[in-house]
Structures are given as structure tokens and as C-alpha cells.
């Protein structure tokens, strides 16, 4: 097989409109309903940029780094349910996009990334800015193509959209050599698509659905455990989930990726589960007798020690991707299908078969859960001298409540505090890097969200270390007048790293102090944005209000307690019922040698 990967050949079709490859790209994007693309030019995509110049419908957002472009497209996709589109050049343009592609693959975000490539006759010659893009991106895309024939280009782009957005969504790459962009060929529209092999299964097997509701009806200690699959399935899935959870009266928890699918203000909501989940969510998971996992994948952040995971539970697992079934945890009832379609059937059978829950058992279960809730595991000791990071998020939530808010995050303690404390009532409002845990995700993701929702309040809850990874995108925000708010919980540490060093490495804080930090206020001003700083709890509220009201991008340097740790915490390799709730407990916590090996 040749190293150039998936070379697509095509034939000119009868009735196809003739145009250049570059024009086809623009035409195909429009036919796919694309309004915005995120990109960065270079030699190998100049013909496409030229075609873009001649077009006045598609809005191109010039990011400052191709990684930024991919995360912006992810934010755009996650907040709209539409695919995010990226255009970058060959070589370094493509390699810079790899982090975003991997991030999107891990979190099932539909991205269509178009990369320029050197001319076909130069491929394999180590030409200037040549890299084996399909080879490099094969393991970090759902699928990719190298298009060597202009007559296959339009069809391939349509196929790319189909694959990115259907089944389990994910990123795709279409690599387009420069000569193919210049050549003329026949354009075909999206209707031409019928893939030879790709048939995602979305309809549930009804027998399995009935088995699932049988288990639910007989459950004594049930819990819903939901994930990003509900959000990906679309708003209808969230609505159906709410109906089913209400009807059954069961408690519900969710993964980091699934937040917002079920309203956090509802009494049946237990909060997030997993490594930094609430006490009640993790205890309920551990002690349940029936677990209803919908659109989640039993990730190691969720399960903790796998052989101690929900030992008594019968498990129902709904996932659109068959490879997730029995991957980490063996389940009793597997349903491979779309979440929305399955929830509809579950509700249908539940209602028409007049199912009833075991009310007495459920009441006892709720009593137990209330007891766990009584631990108040997210409590923290506030201070009137130092801004506690938890307090900062609580105030941010309180002062933005009722507004049209979208939240993105970076990666670290601030991300976990945001997940624990910010209450999401709707899906698509929460954008975070879950699977890959990519520092630098939040700022560009906020750009993408703001582009899609110009009038909304878009806030990146950031850490001072993460935000420096893609800080240059502030320049993009200023250029496109995107009033994103970067709410930096500045603890002067890579706090999450410091917390692990405290727990696992004897407090030897090797290279986790953020030395030589920039003056974020001046930095904001240098970009032409607005800089704010709060150093004491007394000034916090007023500054948050100022941030909200400014109609410009803002970098808000919130100076928080540098030593605060994020609890509850299940250390790696520990079980759900071995949670650490506070610094005091942490001192006596024993992490096994095996646990230390885990990330």
C-alpha cells in the first residue's frame, strides 16, 4: 500500500458543473450549510484562500495558531450541534492541528478539517512543507482522505461531512494537494452521497430496550449515569432524558461531558460523578443495584478502581459505538443506538406497558442518598482575606444566573471546580476538554462559541498556566470583536499538578509553580482587550459585574488562594467509596503503588 494513504480517485460525472478544485471546496462548504470556518493560510492552500476572497457568504475567522482554529471549531460545534470547519495549510499547518483533532476524537466532536498538501507529483519527495498528513492524522481522526483527483473532491468533502456528523461524531481530515485545487473538474452536490461501507446503526433493538426497562422496574437502588452521548444526540435527547428520569423518580448523575443534559437545579440531580465528583454521586454509583448508563463510556476518571466498580449492579449500557460495550466494564444489557431514539422507545414501553417502580425500595434508597448528600462534599472553608477559587466560581454563577451563558474551561483544578459548582440547566452550554484534557482548549473554544452566539455571554473559566498555551487567540477575539471573558483563577500554580505532587510525591513541587507570570491586565491592554484584577473577596462581585458589562474581550486576573485543593477526590486506583473529602483526610490517605502508576 502506498504511504500516501487514502488516495481517492474519481470520474467526471455527467451533468456535473465544471469549476476549479478550490471553487469546489467553497461550493461544497456552502452546500453543506457552513457559515463560519476557522483557519490559517499558507502556500499549499492559497488557491482555496483565493476562492474564499471571491466569496462573500462564508465568514472566515483567522486564528493565531492552527491549534486555536481547531479548538475554536470544537467550541462552535459543541455549542451548536453543527460541525466545526477548519482550513489550514500543509506541513506545520497540519501538524499544529493534531492536538485539536485528537481532542475532538476523544470527546466525539464533529470537525471537518481541510488541509493543503504539496502538489501530487511532489508527494513523497520531502518537498517544502510536505508532511504525511493522512499518515499523521490516521489515528486521531474518525476517517481521512487524500484527494488526488479533482473529480473526486466534491464527493469526498460531502462524504467527510456525513462521516463527521453521523453515528458517533468525530473529526475528519480531507488533504487536498495544491494542483488539485487549481485543476478543473466536475462538481457534484451533497445528494450524491451513498457511502459504500459506512452504515452507522442508530435504531435500538427493541428486545434490549424492554430488558432495560425490566431491570429498571425491578430496581431497588437504581441510578442513571449519563454522558456526552446525550448532548451529541441533540436537544431532544435531553428533553426525553428529563421525562424518563422524572417518570422513574430515580437519582441521576453525569460525566464531565454530559453536564447540562439534565438540569442541575433538579432535586434528582446528584452532581457530577468520578474522580472529583460528589460524595452522593459516587456512593450511589458504588452501592446501586441497577445502573442505567446512557451515552457514557466507563472512562477511568469515572470508574476508579475497576474491580471495585459498582460491584452489585446490573448494568445497562446505551452507546452509539459498539466498541464501547464491554470495553472497560462488562454489562448486562447492551443497546447500540442513538440516545434520543432509544430514550423515545424506553419511554414508549415504560408508558404503554404501565411500568411501576418499587416505590418502597426507592424511598429507602432516597433516604440513604439524602444522608450522603448531608455530607455536603463540595463545602469549603471560605475566607474574607483570600479569594477562594470555589467562592469565585460561586459568585460567577450567582451573578450570571438567568443570563444566556456559555462556559468553556481550560484543564486543571479550575475545570473541576467549574464542573462541580457551576449549575448547568441546558445541554450545549458547557464546553470542556474531557478525554484528552487539553490545556489551552478553553480560550479558543470560547471564540468559536461566541462566533456562533454573538449576543451571548461566553466565559472561559481558566487557570493561569493553561491560558498561556493559546493566549495569542486574544488577538483573534479583538479582531472579530468577540467579547469573550477569560476568568482566570490565578493560583500561581499548575494547581492540579501541585495537588498530585502533594498527595503522591511528598510535597516536592517540581516545576509546578507558575513563575514569571505576565501581568494579565497589561497583557489584555497590549492585545487591545480589557484587563481586570481582583485580589480580595471584597472587590470580587463588582469586578465580575464589570467583566460582564464590558462589551469587549476581557482577561480577568482573579488572584485566588494558591494552596487550595480540589475535593472530593478519588485517588487513582481507588474505589468510589474511598473518597478523600478534605486536606485533613488527605494526610492519612494511602495511595497504593499500583495507583501511583495510573495517571
Amino acid at each position, binding site marked *: *500500500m*502506498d*504511504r*500516501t*494513504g*487514502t*488516495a*481517492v480517485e474519481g470520474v467526471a460525472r455527467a451533468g456535473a458543473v465544471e469549476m476549479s478544485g478550490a471553487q469546489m471546496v467553497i461550493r461544497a462548504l456552502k452546500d453543506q450549510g457552513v457559515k463560519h470556518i476557522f483557519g490559517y493560510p499558507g502556500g499549499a492552500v492559497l488557491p482555496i484562500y483565493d476562492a474564499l476572497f471571491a466569496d462573500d457568504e462564508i465568514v472566515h475567522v483567522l486564528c493565531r495558531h492552527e491549534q486555536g482554529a481547531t479548538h475554536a471549531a470544537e467550541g462552535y460545534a459543541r455549542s451548536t450541534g453543527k460541525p466545526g470547519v477548519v482550513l489550514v495549510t500543509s506541513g506545520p499547518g497540519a501538524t499544529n492541528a493534531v492536538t485539536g483533532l485528537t481532542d475532538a476524537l476523544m470527546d466525539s466532536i464533529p470537525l471537518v478539517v481541510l488541509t493543503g498538501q504539496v502538489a501530487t507529483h511532489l508527494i513523497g519527495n520531502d518537498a517544502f512543507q510536505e508532511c504525511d498528513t*493522512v*499518515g499523521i492524522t*490516521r*489515528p486521531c481522526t*474518525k*476517517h481521512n482522505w*487524500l484527494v488526488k483527483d479533482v473529480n473526486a473532491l466534491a464527493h469526498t468533502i460531502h462524504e467527510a461531512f456525513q*462521516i463527521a456528523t453521523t453515528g458517533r461524531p468525530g473529526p475528519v481530515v480531507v488533504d487536498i494537494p495544491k494542483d488539485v485545487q487549481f485543476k478543473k473538474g466536475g462538481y457534484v452536490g451533497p445528494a450524491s452521497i451513498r*457511502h*459504500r*461501507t*459506512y452504515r452507522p446503526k442508530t435504531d435500538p433493538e427493541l428486545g434490549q430496550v424492554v430488558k432495560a426497562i425490566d431491570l429498571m422496574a425491578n430496581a431497588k437502588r437504581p441510578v442513571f449515569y449519563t454522558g456526552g452521548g446525550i448532548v451529541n444526540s441533540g436537544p431532544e435527547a435531553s428533553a426525553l432524558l428529563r421525562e424518563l428520569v422524572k417518570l422513574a423518580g430515580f437519582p441521576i448523575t453525569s460525566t464531565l461531558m454530559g453536564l447540562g443534559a439534565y438540569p442541575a437545579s433538579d432535586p434528582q440531580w446528584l452532581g457530577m460523578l468520578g474522580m472529583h465528583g460528589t460524595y452522593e454521586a459516587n456512593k450511589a454509583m458504588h452501592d446501586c443495584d441497577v445502573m442505567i448508563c446512557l451515552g457514557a463510556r466507563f472512562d477511568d476518571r469515572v470508574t476508579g478502581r*475497576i*474491580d471495585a466498580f459498582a460491584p452489585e449492579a446490573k448494568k445497562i449500557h446505551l452507546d452509539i*459505538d*459498539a*466498541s464501547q*460495550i*464491554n*470495553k*472497560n466494564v*462488562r454489562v448486562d444489557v447492551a443497546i447500540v443506538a442513538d440516545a434520543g431514539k432509544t430514550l423515545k422507545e424506553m419511554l414508549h414501553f415504560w408508558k404503554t406497558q404501565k411500568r411501576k417502580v418499587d416505590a418502597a425500595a426507592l424511598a429507602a434508597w432516597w433516604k440513604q442518598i439524602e444522608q450522603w448528600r448531608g455530607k455536603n462534599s463540595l463545602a469549603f472553608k471560605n475566607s474574607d482575606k483570600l479569594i477562594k477559587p470555589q467562592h469565585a466560581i460561586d459568585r460567577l454563577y450567582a451573578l450570571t444566573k438567568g443570563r444566556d451563558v456559555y462556559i468553556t474551561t481550560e484543564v486543571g483544578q479550575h475545570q473541576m471546580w467549574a464542573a462541580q459548582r457551576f449549575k448547568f440547566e441546558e445541554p450545549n452550554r458547557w464546553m470542556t476538554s474531557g478525554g484528552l484534557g487539553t490545556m489551552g482548549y478553553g480560550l479558543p473554544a470560547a471564540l468559536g462559541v461566541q462566533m456562533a452566539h454573538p449576543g451571548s455571554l461566553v466565559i472561559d473559566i481558566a487557570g493561569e498556566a493553561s491560558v498561556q498555551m493559546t493566549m495569542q487567540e486574544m488577538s483573534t477575539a479583538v479582531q472579530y470583536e468577540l467579547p469573550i471573558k477569560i476568568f482566570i483563577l490565578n493560583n500561581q500554580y499548575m494547581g492540579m499538578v501541585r495537588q498530585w505532587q502533594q498527595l503522591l510525591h511528598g510535597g516536592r513541587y517540581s516545576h509546578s509553580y507558575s513563575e514569571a507570570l505576565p501581568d494579565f491586565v497589561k497583557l489584555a491592554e497590549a492585545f487591545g482587550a480589557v484587563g481586570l484584577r481582583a485580589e480580595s473577596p471584597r472587590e470580587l462581585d463588582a469586578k465580575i459585574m464589570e467583566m460582564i458589562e464590558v462589551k469587549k474581550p476581557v482577561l480577568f486576573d482573579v488572584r485566588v488562594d494558591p494552596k487550595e485543593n480540589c475535593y472530593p477526590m478519588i485517588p487513582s486506583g481507588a474505589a468510589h467509596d474511598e473518597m478523600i473529602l478534605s486536606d485533613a483526610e488527605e494526610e492519612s490517605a494511602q495511595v497504593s503503588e499500583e495507583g501511583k502508576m495510573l495517571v
Partner: protein
Amino acid sequence: MSAAAKSPSIERHTIAVLVDNEAGVLARVIGLFAGRGYNIESLTVAEVDHAAHTSRITIVTSGTPEVIEQIEAQLGRLVPVHRVVNWTTAKPGIEREMALVKVSGTGERRVEALRLADAFRARVIDTTHASFVFEITGNPDKIDAFIDLMRPLGLADVSRTGVAAISRGPEPM
């Protein structure tokens, strides 16, 4: 892999993958095995239907039942894959492999090599005064056994095709 740690029983499975014959498809399959840490004991690939543009990849792999289940599911996710069949569990399959085996030597050892080759129904396809090349077909165990027997008799070189497999009975894959 945690599943592997729990259950130590390693099994050998032969899996056939019918794919669209497009460039890079083999790299996807091999990359999947390498990236997820699955074993490949042997692998064969060739176009099987020129008109339909399909190739068949036959992979002999080993792992716990949990890992094998994952391998099948992960293969099924690859976009250009038409079908995945496990000949060890899903359908009874027949396996054959071909090997070319070169044995160098003279005198008594040469006579013995020829005698054993005859017993294994290996054909002589090249002869010199000091060597034979045998062609042998059979299941992989038979070929292993033949090669082991040739070792003390002057085994000089081996080339194996890897396994081709097909189901019994009238049905296609």
C-alpha cells in the same frame, strides 16, 4: 488492559476483514492493532473481487476473550470495513497457509529431508545437488511441525504466506 489482567486465558483467533480496496486501508488496520496493543501473529491481504473493489485481510491474533471482542468491535468501526468475521467463534472456518522451505545439505540428511517432505505432502519445487525448496500447504500447526523437523536437516530459509481462511458449507463470508 484491565480486562486482560483479570482473566489470563489467552486464545488464538482468526479474523477476516472484508474492506474496500482503497490505498491506506491496510495501514488503518495495522495501525489499529499497533495503537491499541493487540497482537498480530500473521496477516494476509489481497484483492478478492476486482469489480467490487474489495480486499480481504485475514489476521491471526491472540488475546483474552475480552480483547478479542474489542478487536472485532474496533475493526468494525473503521470506515472502509464491510464485514468482520471471527472464524474461531462466529462460524466454523477452514484455515490454510502455504510456506516455501529451503533445506541445504548433502548425503543422509538430504535423503531424510526428502522422506519427511513426502510424508507431509510437501512438493519439491527447486532442486540442486546441495538443496531443495519445498512447497507445503496446511494449517499453521502442520507447517510449524514441518519446519521444526527440517531444522536439524539443514533448514536454510523459510517464507510463509500467513493464513487464508474461509467458512465451511455453501455460505459466503
